[in-house]
């Protein structure tokens, strides 16, 4: 049976005019989505994924010039018809639901608006239809929510409302641009379930743009890998991800920290960065970063293959060859961890007080105790708002604690700590753009801690700065650079070098790799692992990405609403017995190559912000294993499983131990 695809893009090229000349954002991109099909579009940031979506919608800004052989949707030319079709037959969902909704209009009206606009429904009829739609999106009490304003809804609910808006006119194609990137993993799982259901029940076709291969694997049949504006690989999703053919796809997969792989296995960083798009290379544009490159790669490459297309002339030749993994430096013999940092009963609330009225504060961290040994990595996971970052700042005494004690290397650390503690305990931040002072060169940024802590000055400091740069694998000439002259990964390395300048024993890594592309993330994770091995630095490694934490941590603590609900060695936390929250969290992680896992998935209702009450178990209101009144009224005991594994739960130990594996 030969039918025309619903969406067909052929030879799409796109240029943006800039001061530096034309940027070739897309070069000869072709893809087709059949009716009811779902195509994933993946690549690093800057690869042109979002430009494809904007081109389809006819929403490219000024200065963009588009050429293509065909851009057809159900037989119509999108270059002319895009304005008429978008919102009606093509729906779109963007990354940030908070930005996609108008804060001054009710949810119901925003869902109803396309119906009034495009289908000429009366206001009443459209609003009634909006309530039905919201209900179908899994929003409870839809009639009530329809009257609410965006700020009254949680992130997950907002994204459901955005999807309802996109689906209002029953489009045949849904464009999804990173639809779950701004959401927590448990909420992401709910949204993915919803999208899966829409595909199954309504037969909506989808184009899913994402940097997360796990999500694409769950939702899509076909996959297009984009690199620097060119399609480098295209084919059925499962085989491409199982046995990638193009070196770039292989690199992407090898760079991904995965729960199902061994801990501390070396990741494959893809060296270098995107090529200069103002001067597109005639040959393979991945060649400068490719370990398999030969001279012949300078010749133009064709996208070739039968069932699966790959833009690499060596694809067949190098099949089965692995990416070279960089050598790890020899690990120093690690002593048996003796406690370095001991925190007891740390607590901190926010938003209380106020000048004119007393308000009840939110307890961001509520009586947390933890111990980190010398050279040990404690991973701290939990959804946004659970108090991870606050805890990280509390142990460094960067914000004052309401209660609790901290001992570091046997000494009590007071609220105004000594400079000696400051030298030994440092922090690495999430956002590389914010963590460096834009008006200071790398040299100034790295020299300051050396002088501040009396480690070196003058010529000696210059040598020390160069040593630090070497430590984070940057050339000495980076000394004179300003932050805007570096890439995100390079800036993050400078942030790490600055934290290491004082030769600390302990680092708080607050989402230190979350803002980076996987290829860069792999390099930074390898670096952190090496530094731990060679310098014996201990980390409190805070992350929402369980794959990353599972990769690097010796022990893992799981936090929920200000308290640690489970703590143990990494292998113990990742295997049963689980705290019900850990179980749900692990079950929600989208994993590459885990088809058929859907049935056994555990789904949480609501999200962290829908929490009420402080009596009993914090997780009770969302717990799929809720036992009854005891969970709501009595604080659960800490159950010990062996010497190092603890779970705070009312469930009997046998029942916890009998849980199935939540991963893979």
């Amino acid at each position: 049976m030969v039918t025309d695809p619903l969406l067909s893009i052929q030879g799409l090229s796109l240029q943006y005019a800039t001061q530096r000349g034309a940027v070739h954002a897309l070069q000869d991109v072709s893809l087709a989505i059949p009716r009811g099909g779902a195509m994933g579009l993946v690549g690093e940031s800057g690869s042109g994924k979002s430009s494809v979506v904007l081109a389809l919608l006819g929403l490219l800004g000024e200065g963009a010039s588009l050429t293509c052989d065909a851009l057809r949707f159900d037989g119509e030319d999108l270059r002319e018809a895009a304005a008429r079709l978008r919102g009606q037959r093509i729906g779109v969902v963007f990354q940030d639901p908070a930005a996609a909704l108008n804060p001054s209009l009710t949810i119901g009206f925003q869902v109803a608006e396309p119906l009034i606009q495009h289908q000429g429904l009366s206001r009443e009829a459209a609003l009634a239809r909006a309530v039905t739609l919201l209900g179908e999106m899994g929003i409870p009490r839809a009639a009530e929510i329809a009257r609410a304003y965006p700020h009254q809804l949680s992130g997950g609910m907002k994204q459901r409302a955005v999807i309802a808006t996109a689906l209002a006119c029953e489009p045949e194609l849904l464009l999804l641009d990173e639809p779950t990137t701004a959401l927590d993993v448990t909420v992401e799982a709910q949204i993915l379930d919803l999208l899966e259901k829409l595909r199954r029940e309504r037969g909506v076709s989808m184009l899913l743009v994402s940097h997360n291969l796990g999500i694409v694997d769950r939702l899509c049949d076909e996959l297009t890998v984009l690199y620097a504006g060119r399609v480098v690989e295209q084919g059925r999703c499962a085989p491409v991800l199982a046995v990638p053919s193009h070196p770039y796809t292989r690199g992407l997969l090898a760079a991904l920290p995965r729960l199902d792989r061994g801990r501390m296995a070396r990741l494959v960083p893809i060296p270098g960065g995107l090529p200069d798009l103002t001067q597109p290379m005639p040959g393979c544009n991945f060649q400068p970063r490719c370990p398999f490159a030969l001279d012949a790669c300078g010749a133009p490459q064709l996208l070739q293959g039968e069932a699966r297309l790959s833009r690499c002339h060596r694809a067949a030749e190098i099949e089965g060859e692995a990416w070279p993994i960089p050598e790890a430096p020899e690990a120093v013999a690690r002593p048996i961890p003796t406690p370095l940092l001991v925190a007891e009963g740390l607590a901190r609330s926010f938003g209380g007080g106020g000048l004119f009225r007393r308000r009840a504060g939110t307890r961001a961290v509520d009586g947390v105790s933890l111990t980190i040994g010398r050279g040990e990595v404690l991973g701290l996971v939990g959804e946004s708002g659970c108090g991870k970052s606050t805890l990280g700042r509390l142990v460094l005494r960067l914000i004052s604690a309401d209660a609790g004690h901290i001992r570091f290397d046997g000494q009590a650390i007071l609220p105004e700590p000594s400079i000696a503690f400051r030298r030994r305990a440092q922090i690495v931040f999430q956002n590389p753009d914010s963590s460096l002072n834009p008006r200071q060169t790398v040299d100034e940024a790295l020299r300051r801690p050396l002088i501040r802590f009396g480690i070196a000055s003058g010529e000696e400091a210059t040598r020390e700065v160069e040593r630090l740069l070497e430590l984070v694998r940057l050339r000495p000439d980076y000394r004179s650079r300003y932050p805007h002259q570096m890439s995100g990964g390079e800036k993050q390395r400078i942030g790490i070098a600055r934290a290491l300048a004082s030769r600390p024993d302990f680092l708080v890594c607050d989402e230190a790799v979350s803002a980076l592309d996987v290829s860069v993330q792999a390099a930074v994770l390898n670096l952190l692992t090496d530094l731990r091995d060679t310098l014996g630095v201990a980390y409190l490694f805070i992350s929402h990405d369980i794959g990353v934490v599972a990769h690097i941590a010796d022990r893992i603590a799981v936090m929920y609403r200000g308290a640690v609900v489970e703590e143990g060695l990494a292998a113990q936390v990742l295997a049963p017995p689980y705290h019900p929250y850990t179980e749900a969290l692990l079950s929600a992680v989208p994993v590459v190559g885990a088809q058929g896992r859907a049935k056994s998935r555990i789904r949480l209702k609501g999200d962290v912000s829908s929490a009420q009450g402080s009596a009993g178990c914090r997780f009770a209101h969302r717990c799929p294993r809720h036992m009854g009144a005891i969970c709501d009224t009595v604080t659960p005991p800490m159950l010990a499983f062996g010497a190092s594994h603890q779970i705070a739960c009312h469930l009997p130990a046998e029942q916890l131990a009998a849980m199935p594996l939540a991963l893979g």
Partner: protein
Amino acid sequence: MNSIPRTLWVGGVIVGGIVILAILGPWIAPFEPDAFNVRSRLQPPSVIHWFGTDEFGRDVFSRVLAGAHHSLLMGFGATAISLAIGVPLGLIAAFRRGWTEEAIMRGVDLMISIPPVLLGLLILAVTEPGLGKTILAVGLVYVPIMTRVARAVALDLLAEDFVEAARARGEGGYHILVREILPNAWPPLIVETALRITFAILLGSALSFLGLGPQPPDSEWGLMIAESRPFISEAPWIGLAPGLCLCVLLIAVNIVGEGLRDLLDPRLRGRGH
């Protein structure tokens, strides 16, 4: 890499020209600005008297030149004063928070709630009028705005991670404010300063007009406009010449301010790819 906006060029050339004329005034003026000449009083503009003469026969062009430095001094001097007092106050308020911030900001609110001309009048009423006093008064009037701008900019910057990194090194308030915050706070402050100069010149001239600035027989543009009032129908050029000069200066300074904003504020520059 950043090309200088055309507005900055145009405005800069005009302001620069006026500054040069003000400095060279005593040498290039065709007449003594204070020289009476009763026989040629209230002459319309001519080849000899470019801007005509006033009721005492003084050459208006020479007087405008002589008065230029007063207007410029008031603009730049007053703004410098407001900057010198307002910026530290704003930075301290943002950094200390709590009661210090409340005290500073409520004090500033109090000052801002009094109309500027009234506040200027109040300050000048208790002392003898004069150029220095006018500059000080105008400067004080604009302290609250500088404080607010500095505080707002500093609050944003204090939330940045590099400030937290400085705290993690145990740095003191002086280091954080002067080394980490101030270098990043300059661009918005400079833009605000450039726009503020316009208002300072205008307010200074208004106070002079009311007789609270430089005293006759000194020449000052606002004062000249005030002196020209009785002759507005028979000899409009007496007031028109300083008025037009004031307009040109204000517009030019304003253009410079906007040019600086385009140059320094990346949000308005439009991010290039």
